[in-house]
């Protein structure tokens, strides 16, 4: 049969070549591929270790007016997603039908079924999201800890609090003031165009604009204006997903050196797309998450807090964000608020 069935023989030869790679996970030398965690060899938490009681207490000083600025987009069917990803909400409301009530007091109830991948909308990437081969944060050989339904190490249940200081860096202003803003015609308000590289010098210029010095335990948000395309869903979904302004590798390493806890942007990816080197896949993800245990927060609504910072000349706030203890998961949608 081999001689007469090319398709089968091709598939067979590929299977032979792949050998053990197919079903079992290839074991790589994780100590040579991924940095050791500064939080110890058994750590599964990552950078939220930096949010100590002292850090939270210091961050509380940012609450001066009590004004709350939303920083998450509405989670709704139709927002930009990739390829086969989907969201679907289904409402259970059967008891509202006449005669379907419960008890003498005619109690009714409703609940939802929400079908979705976890990395949709405004969401956080956990330590189990990105690795190099099967090596993940803290040199974890993830192949040993993957099951059909979840991960047995590095799940979101290991995270600590995000009650810390947030910092907004207005990259649109930085690029405008440097005279190098190249915008995208689909953006209704000024934005950095897809593919615009944000360097560490750009971030430092943005911090200097509001006299901010980063502190250990901060969460840094970059406003690129690209989120305006998200807000135009579904009309600009394809443009939004096709590219993004964002961090280059040097900027990511610089932020890691500042010992921040997370980096968020109003893009789907935080890093620049296309990458600095298009033969590399998501290198900034690997620098932040895999090597440094620093979270990535995507699709953040940054325009409101950027405008508020511009008015008040204050770019810092108390960050309100909680992450569900969803055991064995790699990421989740979140709500974020900046408390001033």
């Amino acid at each position, binding site marked *: 049969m*081999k*001689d*007469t*069935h*090319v*398709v*089968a*023989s*091709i*598939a067979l*030869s*590929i299977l032979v*070549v*792949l050998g053990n790679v197919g079903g079992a996970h290839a074991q790589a030398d994780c100590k040579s591929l991924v940095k050791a965690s500064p939080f110890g060899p058994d750590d599964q938490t990552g950078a939220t270790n930096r949010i100590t009681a002292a850090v939270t207490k210091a961050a509380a000083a940012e609450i001066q007016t009590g004004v709350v600025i939303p920083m998450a987009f509405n989670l709704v069917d139709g927002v930009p997603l*990739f*390829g*086969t990803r989907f969201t679907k909400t289904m409402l259970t409301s059967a008891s509202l039908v006449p005669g379907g009530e419960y008890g003498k007091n005619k109690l009714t109830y409703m609940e939802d079924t929400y079908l979705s991948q976890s*990395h949709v909308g405004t969401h956080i990437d956990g330590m189990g999201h990105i690795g190099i081969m099967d090596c993940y944060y803290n040199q974890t050989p993830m192949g040993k800890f993957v099951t059909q339904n979840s991960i047995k190490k590095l799940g979101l249940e290991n995270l600590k609090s995000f009650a810390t200081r947030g910092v907004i860096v207005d990259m649109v202003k930085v690029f405008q003031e440097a005279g190098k803003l190249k915008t995208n015609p689909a953006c209704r308000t000024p934005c950095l165009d897809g*593919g*615009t*590289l944000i360097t560490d010098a750009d971030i430092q210029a943005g911090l200097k604009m509001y006299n901010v010095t980063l502190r250990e335990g901060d969460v840094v948000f970059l406003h690129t204006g690209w989120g305006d395309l998200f807000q135009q869903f579904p009309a600009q979904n394809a443009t939004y*997903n096709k590219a993004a302004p964002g961090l*280059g590798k040097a900027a990511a390493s610089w932020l890691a050196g500042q010992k921040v806890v997370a980096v968020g942007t109003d893009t*789907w*990816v935080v890093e*620049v*797309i*296309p*990458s*600095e*080197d*298009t*033969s*590399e*896949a*998501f290198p900034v993800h690997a620098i932040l998450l895999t090597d440094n245990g620093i979270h990535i927060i*995507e699709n953040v609504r940054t325009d409101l807090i950027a405008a508020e910072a511009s008015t008040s000349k204050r770019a810092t706030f108390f960050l309100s964000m909680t992450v569900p203890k969803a055991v064995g998961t790699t990421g989740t949608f979140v709500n974020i608020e900046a408390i001033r």
Partner: protein
Amino acid sequence: MGLTEFGRVTALRLKRRHFLLAILAVTSSSRATSAEPQRFRVAFANLNEEPGARIEGLGFTGAEIRRSFELASRALPFDMIYYDNGGDPEKALGNAKDAISRKIDLLIEFNSDPAANAEIGRELSAAGVPVLAVNYRIPGAPLYSADYREAGRIAGQALGKFAKENWSSQTVVGAILGDVSDPSSVVTERIQGVTEGLKQELPELSPVRLDSAGHPVRAGGVLAKFLAAQTNRKLVLATLDDPTALAAKSAVESAGRISDCVIVSQGADRSIHGGASERKEIDPANRGSIVLGSVAYYFDRYGYEILPIALRMLQGAQVPERTSTKHILISAKNVFVEYPPYDMN
């Protein structure tokens, strides 16, 4: 490989010019610091950016090449100026003269006309501006180029190996499908390479040339006619570009002959591979395809390959007289390693 004579002279001139510029910068500007990198004005004159114009008989467009320069220059100390030669020697010469008038530090020239290239070389040399030639030689200038013969050889060898491993007891015929009557070296060298690669594995096999005149639609008809005459035979098919490979695959399917044919293409352009959600022909989830792969030319990465050479020239370092593209076979096994998809998050 040594620095060309032209390169040595211009490098010396540039060193002198940059030394003086550096002195000026330090003395005249209080904002200048030694940490600020020297920036260069670099022009790239592209072969042809006409929509629909295919580069070197492959599926790439001039816009893709230009985009690769735009992307690659983001992290380099270059202020880029772009020209479109439009496949026109006169226009290429005019662009080169304009670039000189704009006081560029280096010109990257992608133009296929030898006479115009010779004149461009003379003009630039007289102006003391170094040139880096792309795919076509310019006298005295270092060259970055695809290696068409090597790319063809990789395709031929892949087909031959497959036939040896899977059809050792069968009668195997070989064919090359595409614009085979094109006399330009970019095509003739590919055909020569395919033939050599096939013979390396199957010494008795001489591939038939099937002429589609560069039209994928016509390619399907030509192949269908050929297949009909090859009953009880296996076919190893080299296509000269990816759109032709896709048309050929369709023709093979229509003829009910997928058990009898394998295809290796040239180019690895975006018509044949794509992102994680796109499900193009060469895809990790499509490992049973009769399109075994396509030899990469990386025209969409030219900027990444060429601009670092330009930087070395501008810094006065030696560059080889010729740097060739590192062609490899892109298949379902390595496509996402070579072209990482970013349609996931």
